[in-house]
């Protein structure tokens, strides 16, 4: 079976771990638990007749004190770039992480993930220009790990972008 490494990238506390937990273990916790280093999980995604195994690398979030080290990106096929629009500064981290990927590995497919859609009334406008990011992304998706909205669709969209071009089909509903 095709196996691909996918990194979860974003600022701290945007919900990267919650998205993985929701998708892999079908659980959600309100309690914030920080990630140190990286947590690695595996999940098989079915895309029509084709299965793809995603190795999900949930990388620690960037903050004022620590940046993501390029070693964690080694061998990455694609990434989920997660922002929390209730905290517009997290767009800034997304822009810098996207640059880190481009500088380290060259362009890789990514999905721009606007998480915490259950708090949409608290979403704010971006503090940096993210139009280029939106244009580069294979998809821009709104998700909520809390309500499970858009989560499996986000991983399926990523998986679909990683399939060889001649075997891509439409993404089935779950």
């Amino acid at each position: 079976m095709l196996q691909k490494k996918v990194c979860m990238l974003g600022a701290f506390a945007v919900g990267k771990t919650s998205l993985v937990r929701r998708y892999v273990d079908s659980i959600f916790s309100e309690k914030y638990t920080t990630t140190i280093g990286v947590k690695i999980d595996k999940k098989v995604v079915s895309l029509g007749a084709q299965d793809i195994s995603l190795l999900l690398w949930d990388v620690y979030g960037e903050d004022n004190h620590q940046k993501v080290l390029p070693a964690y990106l080694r061998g990455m096929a694609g990434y989920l770039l997660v922002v929390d629009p209730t905290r517009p500064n997290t767009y800034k981290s997304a822009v810098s992480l996207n640059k880190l990927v481009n500088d380290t590995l060259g362009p890789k497919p990514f999905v721009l993930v606007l998480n915490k859609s259950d708090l949409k009334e608290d979403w704010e406008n971006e503090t940096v220009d993210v139009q280029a990011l939106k244009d580069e992304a294979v998809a821009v998706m709104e998700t909520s790990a809390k309500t499970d909205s858009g989560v499996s669709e986000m991983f399926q969209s990523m998986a679909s972008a990683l399939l060889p071009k001649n075997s891509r089909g439409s993404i089935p509903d779950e």
Partner: protein
Amino acid sequence: MNKKLPFSVVRYVKTQPASNRSMAYLCLDENLVVVDSGGELEKCGIPSIENGVLASEQLPAIESLLPIDESAVVLVNTQIIEGSIIDLHLFADSVGQWVLIIDNTEAGLRLQSEQQDRLCNDIVEEQNTKKRRFK
């Protein structure tokens, strides 16, 4: 399984900061098949490793990292198995490709606790700034 660390591993460890943490290793051939393994695999949270089988089949997390053809790759605080935190060192020499696993659970949990406190404070500070902005 060898309990004694091979020369390649001992030589590599000597280049690292002094440590008395549990260590385990895998030695892989050019096809990334495990030809030797040993040390304290169980204490590092790694299930038993079989020689003659692809390393990636036994430790899927390392598939994307291999082969190593330049300088060593180090991934600190890696969590493959729930409850176990390890530092992964990957390097190559004339013998083969080496995966060195060093337990870091104790220090990792301490770091996590410190980081948790710091980031929770940062979140509170961000929320306070936001409230002041909307007043």
